[in-house]
């Protein structure tokens, strides 16, 4: 296996940074984190997997995360790692793109797999296909989401080095006036082992209670298709599964009233076991299930819940 010598990682989210640093050892001999933080956050990132940390400074009221881009650009230009990975948050995508433009290249966006031959894979056409791509750049730039490298463990005894670097001020054309938490409760579905997902087979928002009851009985998280979150607004956006939403591989995925369009299935078709209840026999989901019932979920679900309860 041909490992790269140097892989760098940046993310504005500490947990994603730690996860990718750990995973990046599958790709490179030496993993370097570009960190906004202090010595104690640097120590955490080293425990997670970084061999080296460039400590670029801390966020303060006047600095946006994006203002660290000139500092990152300078480090990349000086050291030229073979690959720099950005966590694929909104900020990460913006910064990766701006860095790529500066360096005259494209970004390997939302990579789902890195191969030994230097190629990587990403989803295209709403998940209907996967492209194998390769960067021609001296420093390849990629964005990667949570879960791509699989779960990682902390090693309390891991050693690494930290180096403080000078913050290079950005010519700020953008000023942050206000920052507020989003109204909805944040959920991290990617970590869920069991999931009960709902689709348009539910006629009323009220009826989702059945799905919630089932989820509670089996210790599952609730998820949904895009129309349930966007359009009907029955559940928050963070809970919809699909190419522009959550993509994960839980152990168990129970799809209720979901027809199984590719745009949805791409988010969950790596699940270990898929169970579906849907009244439409021709629904595409029935080509991708382990266990299924072609039937009315309004009849099947209450019976199932009752029996589950009785069995406990």
């Amino acid at each position: 296996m041909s490992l790269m010598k140097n892989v760098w990682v940046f993310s504005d989210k500490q947990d994603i940074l730690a996860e990718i640093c750990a995973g990046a050892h599958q790709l490179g001999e030496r993993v370097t984190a570009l960190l906004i933080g202090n010595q104690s956050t640097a120590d955490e990132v080293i425990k997670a997997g970084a061999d080296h940390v460039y400590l670029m400074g801390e966020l303060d009221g006047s600095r946006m995360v994006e203002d660290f881009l000139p500092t990152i650009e300078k480090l990349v230009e000086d050291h030229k790692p073979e690959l720099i990975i950005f966590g694929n948050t909104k900020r990460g995508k913006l910064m990766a793109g701006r860095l790529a433009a500066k360096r005259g290249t494209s970004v390997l966006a939302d990579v789902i797999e890195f191969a030994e031959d230097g190629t990587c894979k990403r989803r295209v056409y709403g998940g209907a296909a996967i492209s194998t791509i390769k960067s021609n750049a001296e420093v390849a730039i990629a964005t990667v989401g949570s879960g791509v490298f699989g779960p990682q463990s902390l090693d309390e005894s891991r050693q690494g080095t930290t180096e403080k670097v000078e913050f290079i001020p950005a010519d700020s054309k953008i000023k942050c006036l206000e920052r507020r938490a989003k109204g909805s409760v944040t959920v991290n579905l990617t970590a869920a082992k069991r999931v009960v997902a709902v689709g348009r087979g539910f006629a009323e928002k009220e009826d989702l209670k059945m799905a919630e009851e089932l989820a509670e009985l089996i210790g599952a998280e609730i998820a949904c298709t895009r129309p349930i979150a966007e359009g009907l607004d029955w559940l928050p956006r963070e809970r919809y599964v699909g190419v522009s939403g959550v993509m994960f591989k839980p152990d168990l995925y129970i799809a209720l009233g979901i027809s199984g369009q590719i745009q949805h299935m791409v988010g969950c078709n790596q699940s270990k076991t898929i169970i579906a209840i849907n009244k439409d026999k021709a629904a595409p989901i029935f080509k991708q299930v382990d266990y299924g019932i072609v039937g009315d979920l309004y009849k099947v679900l209450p019976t199932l819940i009752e029996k589950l309860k009785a069995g406990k």
Partner: protein
Amino acid sequence: MNVITCYKIVPDDQDIIVHEDRTLGLEKAELEIGQYDLPAIEAGMKVVADAGGKVSALSVGSKHLENTKLKKAVLSRGPDDLYLVVDDSLADADTHQTARTLAAAIKKIGNADLIICGEGSSDLYAQQVGAQLGELLGMATINAVSKITVEGDKVIVERTLEDEVEVLEVSLPAVISVTTDIIQPRIPSMKEVLSAGKKPVTQWNLADIGLADNPKTMETINTLAPELAERKLIINEGDSEEVVDQLLANLRQELQ
């Protein structure tokens, strides 16, 4: 306020066929404006409705951009005029080539105050062109924008991130990528469709915009439908107790 909204013509992915060898057949897929670009166009119309000015639409790509129906489809959504950069080498352009071409065209159009891009393209969805374009033009560049308000020579935007919302003051000129929920795109009226045909269209090639040399920065080796996981496909019909019992037994096994 001179607004330019960028869009991409893409195949409707509902019509994509997967062949036996997992390659894709796009021949039957109808071409359309990217679904993430429609709110970008509408957001541009809203800015001009509020602050005055003009909206130009801009796209770069291969010959299919010349399709009359597609040109009308864009112009019927409100823009005053349309600019196209057509070259067959742009058919499978990477994000850097696309951003470079857009940047060169925007410079040639001149006097742009605000450039609005969609969240990503419906076909490749790299969500990269807006970010690269802004950097290439040396303009203020921001993404995930869910609200735009014009205030003099600046815009105030709301940016919706994973778990927070930022309110940002963005100096102009700027390149802004917007979310799909920024605004509901219109369904063009008959009047809008009819008047679309009379609006000016300017078409350039790469040489016209001084971009004869626009090399690829990445290669696409292949594009294949994913191999689906093998499933047990144990499916029963009906809602009888027996059917539910069977599922329950399977479910219990999975829960162990």
